[in-house]
């Protein structure tokens, strides 16, 4: 149906195959004379991976663009004159003007902020829910795990786009801040399941480790064991999943804005610009191509970055 659902479905199948990190962590694989940690191995792999560097550079550029759009363009994106509709490039507007006579390039640059904000905050919200649910389910096990796992199954079974349409229709006419919050909220409460499964399986692996038993024997309580011993060891896989999720959340936000139920007019977003550009593509294609390229590059950058890190950390895939 749409990209993020396909991604979710794939990851769902991956999750069905069970915990990815089998017991017996690769920490002991270092040779007798030259011990190397898993992270060291992964870093060596990453350093030689061009995809990692390209995606990292793109992420840095787009983050900078979101924080300080003034560095990339001096034109005001809301300075629109109908008289220069679809006009060619001039005075800083390197890609010309769109249907409303706004600077195409400037709008694309200024659209970065909303996209990254929604993506990052949804990923953060997702991460918090996933960590809490995954930790509790994985650590306590038994009926708590059974109940939470069923909850995950049910939420995973809800088609994201359809649910988002229903949820966001309720927002109606609201201020831009409320709209952004609503989109973030919807994406976070529908998208946390994959990450929660990953956290759960890595917590299950981590809690059987000797150091956890040692901590328990020293008299550490549940809270301390979870916070100090298990959390640091199950954070890495969750961060990788969340990096990829960040990319798909940006795509989801753009899709919702494209449909007209995500971010609306005063907020500049790529999804909306792609939609207007699409309608007028026969007159001028640049207002379609420019925001499309920005969106595709951003989403790709996050997905490729997460993918590269995951490959480096997963020795089975080598």
């Amino acid at each position, binding site marked *: 149906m749409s990209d993020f659902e396909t991604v979710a479905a794939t990851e769902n199948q991956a999750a069905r195959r069970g915990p990815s990190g089998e017991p017996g962590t690769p920490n002991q694989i270092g040779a007798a004379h030259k011990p190397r940690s898993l992270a060291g191995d992964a870093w060596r792999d990453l350093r030689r991976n061009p995809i990692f560097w390209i995606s990292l550079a793109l992420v840095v550029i787009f983050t900078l663009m979101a924080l300080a759009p003034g560095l990339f363009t001096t034109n005001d994106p809301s300075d629109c004159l109908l008289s220069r509709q679809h006009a060619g490039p001039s005075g800083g507007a390197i890609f010309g003007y769109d249907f409303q006579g706004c600077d195409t390039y400037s709008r694309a640059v200024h659209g970065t902020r909303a996209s990254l904000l929604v993506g990052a905050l949804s990923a953060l919200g997702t991460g918090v829910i996933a960590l809490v649910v995954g930790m509790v389910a994985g650590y306590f096990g038994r009926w708590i795990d059974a109940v939470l796992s069923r909850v995950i199954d049910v939420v995973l079974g809800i088609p994201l786009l359809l649910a988002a349409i229903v949820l966001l*229709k309720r927002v109606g006419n609201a201020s831009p801040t409320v709209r952004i919050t609503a989109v973030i909220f919807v994406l976070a409460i529908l998208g946390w399941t994959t990450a929660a499964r990953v956290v759960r399986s890595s917590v299950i692996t981590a809690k059987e480790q000797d150091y956890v038993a040692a901590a328990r024997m020293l008299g550490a309580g549940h809270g301390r064991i979870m916070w100090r011993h298990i959390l640091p060891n199950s954070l890495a896989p969750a961060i990788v999943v969340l990096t990829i999720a960040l990319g798909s959340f940006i795509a989801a936000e753009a899709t919702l804005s494209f449909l007209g139920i995500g971010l609306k007019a005063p907020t500049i977003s790529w999804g909306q610009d792609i939609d207007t550009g699409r309608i007028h593509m026969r007159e001028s294609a640049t207002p379609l191509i420019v925001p499309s390229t920005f969106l595709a590059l951003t989403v790709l950058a996050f997905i490729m970055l997460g993918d590269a890190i995951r490959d480096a950390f997963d020795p089975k895939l080598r």
Partner: protein
Amino acid sequence: MFRYILRRLLQMVLAFFGTTLIVYALMFAGQGDPIQALAGERPVTAAQRAYLTEKYHLDATGVGGFFYRYFDYVKSLLQGDLGQSLTGRQIGDILQAAWPITVKLALIALAVAIIFGVTAGVIAGIRRASIFDNSTLVLTLLVLGIPTIVLAPLAQYFLGVKWQLFPPTAGSEPTFYALLLPGIVLGSLSLATALRLTRTSVAENLRADYVRTARSKGLVKRRIVTVHVLRNSLIPVVTFLGVELGNLMSGAIITEGVFNIPGVGFNLFRGIRTEDGPLVVGIVSVLVVVYLVSNLVVDVLYAVLDPRIRYE
């Protein structure tokens, strides 16, 4: 087996009531004015208001009133009566006209995914770490990463408008040729995922003990691959494609909207655009059911195909 199916069926019924309750509660309940919420930002005429009040029993109040209306909605949903859109057309009729087109599009997309995805996946799995393998990996990453709202309009512009290889939009009676480009766009995502799944599972199975046994028996490579490896490798792919068919059937909102294909997704797209509340709720309810049923079928299929999966 029977018990497994029964249990899954029971789960599905629960999920059905759960999701329809959520859809219903979100759309209609707890609002200041449910009729205005239905109509969105448009003004509601007195006639429409009276009609909707009577139709949805809005004069009954409280929790009892809510559940009365909810069961009313589920009852008509199960009877296939989806009500009317704000334009006065029967939603059932709209869906009946739209579904064959969506199914046609879904089948084209699935065919694209199977023909190219599975074949390339098998080759990439056998020749791991070759140039072919690496380039397909990068290509699939690109396809998976580029959102449909970028892919569909750009394909339409370059292949349809600029180079005129395909018709840029499909009309009310789309031909196979007009559906081909949207089908490829729609199928490209499934293609990429199917390719990756096939590749991983072929590569994994090639290292399995039974393949080593077959090789040491002196079987030729072609026979090992086609008979021994493929049969086991295609299990996850078949499951994935099953889920995918369910997804595709429930309408490709973006693709159908962009290419103007009058399928289910297009009607939902239009319903959202024109703020036609009843149409959106009607279509979403049906799509949720389609989604749940296709998930059930796939789970059962998975259990049948892979005897290693326990039914309990």
